[in-house]
């Protein structure tokens, strides 16, 4: 077995002195894995995602990305990690209303220094948007796209820097069933084609069933969910 892409070792997370959200969480995500984390509202799923993505530090325990402890990284290094290695997909997608679909996808490339990566980004963006079926909507603003289309733009934005890990926080939370299925197909296809690991936090068993592994966040810790896993 190769080194895990992401490793959580006995991670706790508390807010203030009273509120314990995660306790003793352990998790390994291998490259190209697809993992779903189920759990009811307020169970700490988003917190778990934010800790993995370096947006929140754990109260105790270790978070390793590619074998390296995130605790030791500076804010600048964490930002670079989120930019190059990790892609985020939010429930509310958070597209910039003032930018077109293509421009929204290119936003994460703005932090690159001028060079090949930046120069080739527009072509890559167009190709990805084409891939997700939005080739003819490149110049449309978010307000001109449907909910599902907006979410697809958000997915492409998360992929533009060729990350090794995609973190999706309730990506289908505001979609209907059909759109949920489509998004699920898309995520799985992207996982295969771009060899990107996928960690999806959701309360949709339908979506969770599409992943290789399903975990449940219950009583502040993660458990394997044999019922839903493929």
């Amino acid at each position: 077995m190769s080194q895990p892409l992401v490793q959580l070792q006995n991670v706790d997370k508390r807010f203030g002195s009273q509120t314990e959200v995660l306790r003793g969480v352990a998790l390994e995500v291998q490259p190209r894995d697809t993992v779903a984390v189920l759990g009811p509202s307020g169970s700490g799923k988003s917190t778990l995602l934010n800790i993995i993505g370096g947006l929140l530090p754990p109260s105790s325990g270790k978070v390793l990305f590619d074998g390296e402890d995130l605790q030791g990284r500076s804010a600048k290094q964490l930002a670079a990690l989120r930019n190059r290695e990790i892609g985020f997909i939010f429930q509310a997608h958070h597209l910039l209303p003032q930018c077109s679909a293509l421009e929204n996808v290119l936003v994460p490339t703005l932090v690159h220094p001028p060079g090949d990566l930046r120069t080739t980004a527009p072509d890559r963006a167009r190709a990805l948007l084409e891939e997700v079926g939005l080739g003819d909507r490149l110049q449309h603003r978010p307000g001109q796209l449907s909910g599902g289309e907006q979410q697809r733009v958000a997915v492409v934005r998360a992929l533009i820097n060729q990350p090794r890990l995609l973190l999706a926080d309730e990506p289908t939370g505001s979609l209907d069933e059909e759109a949920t299925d489509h998004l699920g197909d898309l995520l799985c296809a992207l996982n295969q084609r771009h060899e990107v690991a996928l960690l999806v936090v959701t309360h949709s068993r339908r979506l969770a069933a599409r992943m290789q592994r399903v975990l449940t966040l219950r009583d502040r810790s993660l458990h394997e969910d044999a019922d839903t896993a493929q």
Partner: protein
Amino acid sequence: MNGWLLALRGMRHYWRTHVGVLLGIVCATTVLVGALSVGDSVRLSLRNQSLQRIGQFSSVLAAGDRFVQADLADRIGNHTKGLCVPAMMLPGVAASSDGASRTGIVDVFGITDGFFAMSTKGSARPAPGTGEAILNERLALQLQAKVGEEIVVRIEKPSLMPQEAAMATVDEISFALRVKVIDIVAEDEFGRFGLRTSQVPPFNLFVSLAWLQEELELPGRANMLLTDQSAESAYDALKATWQLADAELQLTNRNDDTVTELTSTRIFLDQAIADAAQQLVPDALGVVTYFVNSLKTESEATPYSMISAIGPLDGRVPTPTALAATRALAPTSLGANQLICNQWLADDLKLQAGSSIEVAFWVMNSQLQFEEQTRSFTVHSIVPLAGAAADQSLMPAFPGLAEARSCRDWDPGVPVDLQQLDDNDQKYWEQHKGTPKGFVTLATGREMWSNRFGTLTSVRVAVEHRTRLAAELTNNIEPRALNLFFQDLRGPALAGGMPATDFGSLYLGLSFFLIIAALLLAAMLFAFGVEQRHTEIGTLLAVGFEPPTVRWLFAREALVLATLGSAIGAALGASYTHAVLAALDTLWRDTIGQTTLTAHIVPGTVAVGASCAVVAAVLAIWVAMRRAFRKPAVELLSANAGTDQPTAGTTWLRRAVALAALFGAIWLIARAQPHRATSAFFGGGALLLISILVACRDLLARSKAGAHLRSVATLAVRNCSRRPGRSTATIALLASGTFLVVAIQANRLTPPTDPTERSAGTGGFTLFGRTTLPVLRDLESDVGREAYGLDDDELEQVAIVPMRVRNGDDASCLNLATAQNPQLVGVRPQAFAERECFRFTRNEAKQNDTDNPWLLLNKDYGDDVVPAIGDGGSVAWALHKKLGDSLTYRDEAGNDFQVRIVGTVADSILQGNLVIADHHLQQRFPSASGYRMFLIDAPPERAEQVTNDLSRALLDVGLELTPTTARLAAFQSIQNTYLVIFQLLGGLGLLLGTAGLGVVVLRNTLERRGELATLRAVGFDHAAVRRLVFCEHGVLLLLGLIAGTAAAALALLPALGGERAMPLTPVLGFIATIAISGVLWVWAASVLATRGGTLAGLRGD
């Protein structure tokens, strides 16, 4: 895709918010650029006026009461290869031909063709002809005179003899001319011509030099030379080309052409001339002849005779033969108290050798009062009335005597009783004229009769020295020793053209509130917009943007807005400048007096102003929006982003501060000194404001959950405590602005209710007087009153303190330009000291010194230092000096000396002048004859009668009397007007601030959309929610206004009572305007913020 494109996208999308930001920046830049341009306009207007004043002339010889030959101008011009024109400058008064309009202090200029060609405009206008005059616009307006009409001008008649010399006459010091106005010149055609720095245009009248010379009986004479050369070059040319006649000297052969006599048309020879003559001709004889009142023995008396004092200028040098006979009239053996009389006198008084004789004579003391002095002599010997002893030419051409054919025609400048003269005296006069009847030594004569105008009436030399004297005497005299020197015009004009106050900074300060309010509003709107885009910020952070990069993205938007706004504002700045200048020309006229200002927009200033506005705007926005970037991405991306939890404060510390401030206010007010009441109450008001604000903060912080909510209003008050810091900041801004703008009125100056109060700015005097022509006698003496036709009854209970004036620049706040050489006023220090008048702010008297500080004017500070006392405001703001500082002056002998500030008085009618001891002024400026400024002690109820009587008596010298309270009010109106300007501009800033309150409403409300949507969901209708929001912020508005007003009321307490109570209506009107504006903005924002559906709010859209 790049950062700039992203920034531009954001700007376009959020244009609604950015419009407000842009407008705020435009407003701030307009005011900033406009204020700076006001400064440029004032500066350049004054500069232009200064240059208009002097035209193309670079230096001037202003000889005052000395008259050079007019053709000296040609000699100097030829020598320098430049231009030099002669002119005459005399003071006068003018009136319309029907007497309906009058004006004093007219500058009358006798000019030649070519004068106007040297004006800024360079017109070819010729000089007026005989009987004609050209007026400047100000004089024409004052007299309502038009071209073709006639006016009457009374001009000071130059006295060949110094006017204050005892023998100078009082009568005929002026003469009247009726002239026809042929033209009126504008300011660029020497309408502003003058030698003094002032932005107030003078009253100028131009006549033909030739005609003026004729009227004055001074053919070929001028007392002013104007040249386009530098002062140094012109002076060098003067030294090289001047002649005896230019120094008013003449050489006359006497005694059958064996003796040459050097005399002056000014009667007395300056010491410099005597010294030069002695140096050239060491064996010269000096003579001083004097008109004595009487020569008396115990039983006999001879009235009104001449006595000559004769002696060698250098006692070591033998007297030449030609002068021996004259020398013998006062031989070496003659003692100091011995007198040689002629036979006629000996017969008249029955004298013989050894007889005692008393000589009585008038001298003029420093207060222009005649003092009779006596001296006893012993008759040394008697000489026959023949030969040298019968030399009529020993008597100089005393005015009123020399031309008299008979004793009865005498009209000397001293009091004489012609009844004392008998036939014998008449016969003597007819036969011998003013032949001296007695002779004393030169030393004795100098001792008795020397004065500041000279010590000799003639110098006699052997005729063989005549040529040498004629050729070389001028080489041995420095012209400047005779007050003949060129002074630089251009340098002082340019320096004087600088405003005493930096008007750019001044109006920037006055507009401070407006600029800050506009920038704050722009910053708040921008920050509000940024906070609305919190998810955008969170997303960017989440996708790997570092916080500085995200901040820079938004900063780019701010930079673009700031640049655009500044560009528009810079263009509009000219409008603000024009608006301010228009206001200065009308409503705020008091602050600029008679100055005419024109707008000057300097590109460099506009660029600087716009750049500063960009920097200020970006900084303000940066500071305002930094809070939005402190939160982590997770929080920004959450639905609750933008809501903060209130933080607990330190209660005990707040209460301690509030109490301390309150006690501080009480302490300050309780200890306030009467003359410092204003600053004490202002400070007390400020402390009270702090106390109230801290109390408000404490009140808001203490509002706890769990208390019973009785109504929507109670809920509104509770909601204010949700963000106590923000609420207090809102209250504090409104309160501080209200306090400052209202309470500044406490500094309003008012004249004293009792002008006779000695410590008031009036000095206890009721009237202030100025004359154009000098008053040559003491008006408190019988002689003086008689000379001017004043009745003792008219002046009962009236005391007059006269002051000599040395013309100079006006250093009062009425003069915008920098005063280079402030006007000097000479007073007898005792006159002020014994009255203890005016209140000193600072002086150099030692702590244990009990003498009145006015006596510092008599203190010896060294040979070339003259102590002076000035008005504190003038010294600080017009002269930019302080206690102990000095200014350099040049006296009439051409020597530089220092005028040192040894004391300052508060808010006085002396503003604009520096007061020195009279004896200093006489010593340094002998030509400053007579008194031209008066402070009059009179019972206030008789002020009008005294004014009428004095004005009638002194009509010919152009007396203008002003109540001291009116003069003080004129000075005070300037400061008061600045207060009004500050309040107006500050008020505009506050109005803009109330718009900021609207932004606060929007911000607070949109943060809590979910909460307000919930209220709607549970049954609050639209109007109730709007009412709730309105009440919540209305409370802040109300608290802010109450706090500010209460504190301001305390600060204004001293100004609210008494006869000169400050009018309350404008203050109340201002507060009402702020309140109404605040209510309108809060209401509008409440309506705007509570639009939108309930569901949208519940969903967080």
